[in-house]
């Protein structure tokens, strides 16, 4: 019985890691790649660690597995937000099918602070946003 549970959990974990790596290869844009990578890989590694916690009948392994899962769940969104923010500041183009870029003009260029109402430029300036015009720009 416990072997069936282990097989199901490890299969789900390995498949979600595989989907994360297919996503980072196939998605058309940096931001979409980031969105795929963080969630799916955290889920997959978490499932594999739960597998290890079930497999070893030992308190120390369970504690370590819970510690790693907790650490991954805490740190992965923080790291993803920081790298996405750095990408937005360094003008990484968005996918050409992007409909709206709500962050456009909201960041103060000098202090890197986020403003809810931009006073320097109106929010409906078309064509000035950093959306790619061709597919190969973001490939």
């Amino acid at each position, binding site marked *: 019985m416990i*072997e069936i549970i*282990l*097989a199901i959990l*490890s*299969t789900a*974990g*390995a*498949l979600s*890691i*595989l989907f*994360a*790596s*297919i996503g*980072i*290869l196939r998605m058309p844009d*940096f931001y979409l*790649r*980031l969105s795929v*990578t963080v969630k799916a*890989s*955290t889920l*997959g*590694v978490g499932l*594999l*660690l739960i*597998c*290890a916690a079930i*497999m*070893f009948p*030992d308190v*120390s*392994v369970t504690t*370590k*597995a819970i*510690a*790693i899962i907790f*650490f*991954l769940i805490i*740190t*992965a969104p*923080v*790291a*993803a937000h*920081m*790298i996405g*923010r*750095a*990408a937005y*500041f*360094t003008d*990484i183009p968005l996918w050409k099918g992007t409909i709206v870029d709500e962050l456009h003009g909201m960041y103060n260029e000098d202090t*890197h602070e986020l403003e809810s109402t931009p006073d320097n430029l109106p929010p409906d300036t078309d064509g000035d946003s950093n959306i790619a015009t061709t597919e190969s720009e*973001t*490939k």
Partner: protein
Amino acid sequence: MITLEAYFDYVILPILAISVMLVFIRLFRGPAVVDRVIALDLIITIGIGIITVYSIRTHQKVLLDVAIILALIAFLGTVAFSYYIEKQKDD
């Protein structure tokens, strides 16, 4: 009847190895630095999974300590890269 050891050896570990190879393609190809940074982060995260499966397979629970350190290094590396990439724009 397939044993669980054979299942880990012939299904789970090859899936994880193929995932690392797919991410490596993105690491070489990535048009910007940030693409390479998240590819490296994903490779380290998959490495944690591989270490976990290997420690299940060999009954060596000490290997999970390495996984903790790798998780820490992945977070610190990504934060440091993004901090300096953001600072680089100001100059």
